[in-house]
Each structure stands twice: as structure tokens, then as C-alpha cells.
């Protein structure tokens, strides 16, 4: 077993430098360690000034997304043992502005998420006293996959279209819109379609498909977007062929 592994980590300290630089650290190799453990080792013992986000260390909070050896990954779910013998390159996620070291700014996504209205929209609310909305396991299954998104931003940093066109609403936000559209309790699909057929919405996506490949939670945003396009197109056809009232 190899005793140590080298990490090449992007540093960016806006107070000292105007461009990112590369730092090299040597950390002990442990079979059970993920890249995040190695980063924590660096922070605890080698360099306290290295900044990165993390929290759950179990792949569910979505904080620790970074580029590991060139592809977007959750660092708490990427084992050192998968990248031997090293050196392992750790960089901030692509296409987001870098705030510091491995921390990127994701406020853009937060604005977009709100824009797609990710909440249940109904014409009239059912009073709580009447109990739950019924929803069969099959109906649940229709949107379940899209509800698994942990907002980790890996898909954005894999999507070249987002890189080229930062106004693109992007994979996760569209998948979440679709999550509500497909929910049998929701009646907001027309409103969301209105928003997502705008210039920055679904039609920007050229089905690169990388978003789905890097998604750690198998959300399949690429699928969500294509299905959404089909819905949008069918809706368009209907509005063309049917009289107003029948839509």
C-alpha cells in the first residue's frame, strides 16, 4: 500500500493574488479516505488557510462539490483509492465564479431556483381537516427521481452550455420544475412552462447530456429537460390546433 498521496489543489486568495495558483500537498494515504478527508487533513495539520465547503460527509447535503482530476465530483464520495497513484488534482467547480480557493459562488442558482417556482401550486387548497392528497406509489414514482436533487451544482459545472450562456436556467433548476410538474398534487405546470419556454429556459439545452452523467443522485436532469421540451412542443401544437377554450 502506498504511504502517501500528492494533492494538487487550486488556491485563490483574492486579497493576495489576482489569479488562481496551484499548491501541492502531501497527505498520508488511507484506504478509507475520501478526497474530503485529505482536504481536512491539509486544513488541520498543513495549512489552516485552505477554504472549502463541506458538511454531512455522506453525500446528501450537496456542499462539497469540486473538480477531482478534471470531473465534477462530491469530494465526500470520491475515494483516494480511486485516483491512485496520484497526484490528485482538486479544483473549484467550472463555470461558477470562484470566491476563494475551492469555494464558488452559487447565488445565481438560488435565483434561478426561485424563478421556476419549485413549490406546489393549486387553484384551491384542500383544508388540512380533509386529510392528505391521495397519491399512489405509481404517481409518486412519476416525479420521485427528479425530487432527489441535492443542489450540488455538479451538473452545472458539467454543462458547457451553462458555461457559454450563464443566463441558461440550467439542468437542476429545470429538473426541479419538472419534479413539481409531474407531481399529481400540483397544478402549476402551465405557469412554469410559460417561464421555461422563455429564451433562457429549456430550449437553450442542446442535450449535451453530461449533466446526467455527473449527477451523483441519478436525477437525470438531461431527461427532465428533453421531456419538458416534448411537453412544450405538444403544448404549442395544441395551442395551434385547438380553439382557445379547449387547451
Amino acid at each position: 500500500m502506498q504511504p502517501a498521496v500528492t494533492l494538487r489543489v487550486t488556491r485563490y486568495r483574492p486579497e493576495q493574488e489576482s489569479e488562481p495558483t496551484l499548491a501541492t500537498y502531501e497527505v498520508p494515504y488511507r484506504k478509507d479516505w475520501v478526497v474530503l478527508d485529505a482536504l481536512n487533513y491539509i486544513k488541520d495539520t498543513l495549512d489552516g488557510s485552505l477554504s472549502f465547503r463541506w458538511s454531512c460527509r455522506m453525500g446528501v447535503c450537496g456542499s462539497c462539490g469540486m473538480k477531482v482530476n478534471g470531473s465534477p465530483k462530491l469530494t465526500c464520495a470520491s475515494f483516494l483509492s480511486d485516483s491512485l497513484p496520484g497526484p490528485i488534482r482538486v479544483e473549484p467547480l467550472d463555470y461558477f465564479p470562484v470566491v476563494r480557493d475551492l469555494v464558488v459562488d452559487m447565488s445565481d442558482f438560488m435565483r434561478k431556483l426561485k424563478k421556476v417556482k419549485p413549490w406546489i401550486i393549486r387553484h384551491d387548497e384542500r383544508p388540512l381537516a380533509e386529510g392528505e392528497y391521495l397519491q399512489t406509489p405509481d404517481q409518486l414514482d412519476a416525479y420521485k427521481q427528479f425530487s432527489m436533487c441535492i443542489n450540488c451544482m455538479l451538473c452545472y459545472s458539467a454543462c458547457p452550455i451553462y458555461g457559454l450562456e450563464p443566463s441558461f436556467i440550467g439542468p437542476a433548476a429545470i429538473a426541479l420544475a419538472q419534479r413539481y410538474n409531474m407531481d399529481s398534487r400540483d397544478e402549476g405546470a402551465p405557469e412554469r412552462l410559460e417561464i421555461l419556454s422563455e429564451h433562457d429556459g429549456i430550449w437553450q439545452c442542446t442535450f449535451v447530456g453530461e449533466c446526467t452523467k455527473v449527477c451523483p443522485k441519478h436525477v437525470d436532469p438531461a431527461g427532465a429537460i428533453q421531456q419538458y421540451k416534448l411537453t412544450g412542443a405538444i403544448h404549442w401544437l395544441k395551442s395551434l390546433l385547438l380553439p382557445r377554450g379547449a387547451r
Partner: protein
Amino acid sequence: MPRSITPFLWLLFSAGGTVAALLFPIHILLTGLAVPLGWVNAPSYESVLGLVRNPVARLYLFVFVSLPLFHWAHRFRYTLYDGLQVKHLTALIVVFCYGTALAGTVMAAYLLWTIP
């Protein structure tokens, strides 16, 4: 691009993509390779003409040419935008791509109409 027409163009793109995926390989194989290389004997002029006279075949050929052209127009347009990052030429690219597809479609209709 007016927003209302995008879904329509996408439908054409998808339909064209499906037509191309299902039918183009065999046609290219036959017309472009098997016949020229003599793997099979070329169908005679008359038999081809006879085939094309059939109204179903005419419709088939119309779809066969026009939809895939729109498929190309759509894809190529985005490839130009993204691959070369020439967003500023949007209008030009749009006119070129969809214009070509439209021209091809008109030509196909004309030819199929005029073939005796």
C-alpha cells in the same frame, strides 16, 4: 428567434432526427456504397422512376429530404453558436441554416411534383 416558433423548429428537428436515424444508414449504404462499389446491381433508371411515380414513394421522399434538412439546420445552428462562440452572428446563422433547409424542402417539393 421569436419564442413561439422555437417549439416548432424543435419538433422538426426531432422528427428529422428520427427519420435520419431510422432510414439514412440503409439508404447511404445502398446508394452511396453498395451500388457504386458493385456489391449489388444498380436498379435500372426505369425501375427507379417507376418507384418514384408511386404517390406514397413521393411522400416518403419528401419527408426523407426535408425533415432531415431541418434536423441539420437546428443542430448546426447551435454547433456554430457554441462551438465557435459566435453569438453575435445569430441572425446570419439562423437565416443561413433554416433558409437552406427551407430551400431544400421547396426544391424537393418541386422536383417530386414535376417528375413525370
